[in-house]
């Protein structure tokens, strides 16, 4: 076969490249391209690593590893292909100038530089493995969570979640352009006999994949965990839960943890209050299951049984924190074993998603009285290592729906029954639990606040016939900076990314019918003025924004 007519083929491209890199005489065009690409990228990687070092930006980077890759690759190559371009220049220089004293000095400098580069390489050999295993965490850049206090930034940019507003509702999930509001794609859920039978529990972005927990109220469609290509909106894989409800989703180290409860559960919490540390949970009539899936292919990795009905899951620092109907539990992600358990008693306990900041877990615990129907709740902080309670707020006569932790403060919205609904936003000192301020709002705050740049954003719902409010408050004193009206029916946390507040509303009727069409709205964070509004999924109930 004529070498000049050879082509790279998908089936053998890896082997072709490897063979061509070994070729000593790059006579074919393919060898020429491959070897030059290798030199070009290896050379750039070394330069990028050197600049990174000169800027003092850190030790372990993709670039320093790339230096290693370049060096080791050179070591495998032979003959002319081993010579980097700048080395070729040096050789040509020798041919032109012979062994001048200046050249000797230059060579000495080059040797020293080479030694320095080699030193940079030490300790970075595991990078490739790290990026593969950590890629599943690369998408943690979703707006609000990225700005939460104590969250670590991921400096590996190789796999990023495509930017967009991802909105999930009762009929599917859509990706919307953050700048224009135009829908990029929509993945539709299966049709059901009655609208509003499905809803989106949670959206978790990891790299180029959006993981969605879809809950179902109908027997015809099972609760499903979906993996959707964030670029195209195409389904990558899915997993149905035949006899369980899909409650919450958490991710860590490339593994998805799906918290499920049995379909016909009748959770009766333990009658005696357990001790806080090191004790197994008291017997409960219900056990729930956490399934662990490989995020890439959806294969089940493991499963863990926990007592009580699962309310929330949260993963951090090698630990899975479970908020259940009978208490809080911490499980080791390495082996699934329980690290600690803190019992919580009550007739109908609800726990909101824990926030882990500086080894402290912040959450809210609501207890609804079955007789009175009233809810009493607290904001509480626990040591993540032992489960020991550090502080709790005074009881709040309200159901609590979620918190935000930022700037050493814990923010929580409140709701009081009545028509119209009333509520407000409170701030607590994250260290002591002392209440810092309490600002009443013209409506109930039914979704977790979000914080950005010294401002906390909330939505306040009064009643269906009144517009809903999105408000921005100063985090230091709770003073209202601005508030604007939007159609009632917000069922998502206002999410702030790059100076824009995104909310999704089900429009009038959404809270009753559950199937009204929805809209997503972008507001300027500075004054609340509307940037764009667009139709999105019906009854949107989950929203994340990747900037």
């Amino acid at each position, binding site marked *: 076969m004529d070498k000049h007519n050879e082509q790279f083929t998908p089936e053998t491209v890896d082997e072709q490249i490897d063979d061509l890199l070994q070729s000593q005489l790059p006579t074919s065009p393919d060898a020429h391209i*491959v070897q030059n690409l290798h030199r070009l990228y290896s050379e750039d990687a070394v330069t990028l690593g050197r600049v990174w070092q000169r800027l003092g930006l850190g030790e372990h980077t993709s670039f320093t590893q790339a230096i290693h890759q370049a060096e080791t690759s050179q070591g495998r190559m032979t003959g002319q292909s081993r010579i980097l371009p700048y080395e070729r220049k040096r050789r040509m220089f020798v041919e032109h100038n012979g062994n001048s004293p200046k050249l000797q000095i230059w060579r000495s400098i080059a040797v020293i530089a080479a030694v320095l580069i080699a030193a940079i390489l030490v300790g970075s050999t595991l990078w490739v493995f790290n990026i593969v295993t950590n890629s599943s965490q690369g998408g943690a850049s979703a707006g609000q969570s990225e700005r939460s206090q104590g969250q670590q*930034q991921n400096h590996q940019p190789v796999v990023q979640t495509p930017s967009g507003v991802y909105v999930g509702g009762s009929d599917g999930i859509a990706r919307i352009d953050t700048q224009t509001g135009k829908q990029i794609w929509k993945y539709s859920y299966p049709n059901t006999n009655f609208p509003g039978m499905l809803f989106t529990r949670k959206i978790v972005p990891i790299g180029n994949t959006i993981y969605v927990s879809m809950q179902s109220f109908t027997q015809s469609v099972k609760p499903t965990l979906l993996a959707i290509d964030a670029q195209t909106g195409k389904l990558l894989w899915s997993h149905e839960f035949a006899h369980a409800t899909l409650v919450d989703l958490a991710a860590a180290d490339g593994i998805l943890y799906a918290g499920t409860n049995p379909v016909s559960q009748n959770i009766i919490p333990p009658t005696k209050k357990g001790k806080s540390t090191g004790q197994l949970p008291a017997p409960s009539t219900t056990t729930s299951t956490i399934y662990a899936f490989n995020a890439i292919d959806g294969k089940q990795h493991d499963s863990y049984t926990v007592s009580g009905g699962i309310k929330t899951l949260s993963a951090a620092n090698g630990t899975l924190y479970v908020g259940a109907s009978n208490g809080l539990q911490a499980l080791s992600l390495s082996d699934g074993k329980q690290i600690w358990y803190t019992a919580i008693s009550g007739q109908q306990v609800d726990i909101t998603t824990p926030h882990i900041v500086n080894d402290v877990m912040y959450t809210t615990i609501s207890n609804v009285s079955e007789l009175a129907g009233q809810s009493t709740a607290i904001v509480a902080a626990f040591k993540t290592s032992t489960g020991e309670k550090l502080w709790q707020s005074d009881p709040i006569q309200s159901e609590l729906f979620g918190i935000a932790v930022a700037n050493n403060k814990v923010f929580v919205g409140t709701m009081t029954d009545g028509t119209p609904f009333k509520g407000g936003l409170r701030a607590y000192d994250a260290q002591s639990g002392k209440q810092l301020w309490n600002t009443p709002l013209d409506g109930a705050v039914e979704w977790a606040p979000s914080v950005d740049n010294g401002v906390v954003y909330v939505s306040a719902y009064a009643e269906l016939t009144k517009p809903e409010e999105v408000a921005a408050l100063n985090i230091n004193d709770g003073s209202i900076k601005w508030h604007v009206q939007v159609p009632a029916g917000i069922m998502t946390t206002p999410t702030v990314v790059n100076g824009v507040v995104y909310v999704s509303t089900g429009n009038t009727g959404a809270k009753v019918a559950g199937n009204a069409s929805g809209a997503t709205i972008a507001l300027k964070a500075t004054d609340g003025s509307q940037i764009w509004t667009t139709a999105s999924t019906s009854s949107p109930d989950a929203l994340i924004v990747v900037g």
Partner: protein
Amino acid sequence: MQLLKHSSLSNHSLIAELYLQYGPALLMYIRRYVPSREDAEDLLLEVFLAALESDILSSLDERRQKSWLWSVAHNKVIDLHRRFKRRPAAPLEEVEEALYDDDLLAPEAVTLRHETHDVLRAHVSSLSEQQQKLLSLRFAHGLHCSEIARLLNKSDSAIRVMLSRTLNLLRNTYKESGEEK
């Protein structure tokens, strides 16, 4: 490390993120116009030093940050070329010294400037970001298709198709433009 003494931690973090995100593409851009590796390195360093010292960069949105970096890089490249133009008027001793330090003026660099790398950079720069990322993962990091597929959450076959097509595209472009050596 000294360079960061006066910059805040948040700015440090921002610059690190920007560097990881845009550094490779900026270097690819700079090297198209600055054949000397050492000069390109210095230029890239200058771009990000300017970023460190910028008061406004952190207040810009992502697209404007990207534009800002490219503008600075573009201006730095122009500045460098202006300096090169002025150098021939320098004293002989300085020119001689420059021959050691400055590849643009070195005789061998005149030949190297026309070498495949420069042409290849031009072609690579015209590829999509995804194609460039793919080439970087394969040739800078030495990852095989299956590893890249895992990393990018794509199928192995999709990566193989994209990589082979990209290489064939480069190959054909070479043939068409007669730059094949």
